[in-house]
């Protein structure tokens, strides 16, 4: 592939349980301030630890506000010359749930406010975009959206891309993960021997990706995709798909595994994910790069996770600080370098992993601008 332009993350906006901007979120990660709480309201009074946005505004009002925030801080006056790429696993399912559970039928369900396109439909009432497309690959949705932003910019097709990772808590997702037996009733413990599951969460994460950097921008250096072709919900036990995605991302970034200083792991806190991902990291990198999962602070924001964790990576590079792991007392895999404190160090390249149902894998390499 001929690289016509480089892709830089120039502006971000976010809201999740742990913060309303990238600085606040990173601060909470570093001081281990988790807002994941036990909640029985989401599914048949069964307690599960979830991470909910605390706001007096509706979820979709926050979405519009966060896009306005991007416009305010960016060099754009409108989004008319910007491609919109949404990543979401559930779209408008919470809207459908409200109507169906209240009325007992579909009569008042609007198909335009049910599917993944819901997010774009809501945004287009307020903003005009050059074009738009939505990815829905479960928990890799917004990582794949960022990957596509990198592709269309490096191929010289667009100059401005707004990537949104958007997923709202719903009974479908909380009850669904409960049915799979992978939800913890406590804040999750990624990579710990005693981990007992994940925390479902919600977030809106917005990233403006452009051809020209500004102060504190980071570069999207490479993207790697793979499919496990193994099982709908279980990763390959040796992490073969995860390793392949990381290898491809590093290859596209034209660096080697030795250049990677830090890995923001998918690290959900489930038995299957963390052991497979740790094996993949061990096989590809040994114990050189530091590794953390920030989901013990943010929860698993599902389709928004790739975008949210890209913003965390931006803070890690800009602050030149590896964040500590939270709730890690006894690492299961002793052969990878899980951080146990905040570590100031030179950080040039980081990897962010996102893995999903269906064995869909996406790894992103971000770099400090030289």
């Amino acid at each position, binding site marked *: *592939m001929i690289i016509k332009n480089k892709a830089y993350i120039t502006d971000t906006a976010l809201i999740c349980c742990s913060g309303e901007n990238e600085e606040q979120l990173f601060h909470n990660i570093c001081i281990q301030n988790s807002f994941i709480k036990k909640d029985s309201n989401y*599914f*048949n009074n069964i307690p599960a630890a979830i991470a909910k946005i605390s706001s007096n505004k509706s979820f979709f009002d926050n979405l519009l506000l966060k896009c306005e925030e991007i416009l305010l801080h960016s060099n754009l006056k409108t989004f008319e010359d910007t491609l919109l790429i949404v990543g979401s*696993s559930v*779209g408008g*399912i919470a809207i*459908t*749930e409200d109507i*169906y*559970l209240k009325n*007992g*039928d*579909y*009569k008042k*369900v609007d*198909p*335009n406010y*049910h*599917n*993944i*396109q819901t997010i*774009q*439909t809501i945004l287009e009432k307020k903003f005009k975009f050059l*074009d*738009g*497309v*939505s*990815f*829905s*690959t*479960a928990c890799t949705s917004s990582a*794949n959206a960022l990957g*596509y932003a990198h*592709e*269309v910019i490096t*191929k010289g*097709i667009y100059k401005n891309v707004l990537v949104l990772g958007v997923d709202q808590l719903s009974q*479908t997702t909380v*009850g*669904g*993960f*409960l*049915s*799979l*037996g992978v939800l913890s009733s406590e804040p999750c413990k990624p990579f710990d021997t005693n981990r007992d599951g994940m925390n479902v969460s919600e977030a809106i994460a917005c990233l403006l990706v452009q051809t020209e950097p500004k102060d504190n921008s980071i570069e999207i250096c490479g993207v790697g*995709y*793979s*499919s*496990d*072709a193994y*099982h*709908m*919900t279980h990763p390959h036990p040796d992490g073969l*798909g995860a390793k*392949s995605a990381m290898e491809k991302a590093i290859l596209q970034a034209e660096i080697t595994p030795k250049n990677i200083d830090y890995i923001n792991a998918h690290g959900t806190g489930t038995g299957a994910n963390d052991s497979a991902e740790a094996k993949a990291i061990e096989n590809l990198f040994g114990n050189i790069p530091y590794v953390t999962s920030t989901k013990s602070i943010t929860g698993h924001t599902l389709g928004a996770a790739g975008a949210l964790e890209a913003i965390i990576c931006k803070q890690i590079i800009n602050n030149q600080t590896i964040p500590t792991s939270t709730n890690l007392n006894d690492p299961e895999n002793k052969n990878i370098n899980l951080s146990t404190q905040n570590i100031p160090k030179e950080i040039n390249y980081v990897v962010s992993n996102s893995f*999903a*149902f*269906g*064995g*869909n894998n996406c790894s992103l390499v971000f770099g400090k601008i030289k």
Partner: protein
Amino acid sequence: MRINLEILDAAFIYGKDEIVELQTKELVPKMVTRRRLTRAAKIAIYLANAVNFKVGRIVYGSSFGEIPATASILKSIKNNENISPTDFQNSVYNTAASYLSMLYGNQNEIMTISSGDNTAQNLLKMGAIKALDGDEIFLIATETLNIPNIEEVNSCIDYLECGVTLKVKVTKMSPNTAINTDNNVIKIPNSLQELFFLAQQFDNKKKCIIEIKI
């Protein structure tokens, strides 16, 4: 930007309520795998076989995703019942493409997009952009809307199960086929219209070149 695509192969299928013959038993011999497949996955497997596709990059699209699994989950929630784990794992939009990848051991990049009525247009655009890398791209889209009481929200779609696929690659040849869905009399979901038109036009004895405007 304009990208010309050659359509190398195409197939489509549709049914009023349910497509009757998808050859699933022959195409998926293992019962343990077959019984977990969604309707969309069965359609995807049928179409992949029709164009002899097994391994390569896939861009899959659906406006509404796995509606039967979603409807079953909603019904369980309404009745205060536990959600079926199979329904939940089969409710994600990338279910059909994932089962297809598992069947043939396809470890390549597999994308799933959902853009409402613009799904087919966006699938063609994304396929064209990805095809710039030089390989053949397998484009596939399905809708499976056959759930109890669908008439409460559907008054314009006659064919509740539909699927269409195109195998494409970039070409320097001039376009000879224009996309025109104005006279399409088959009432399939809007999300598949442009792809259906092209699949209907496809003739394997002639070159079929389209221009995609990005």
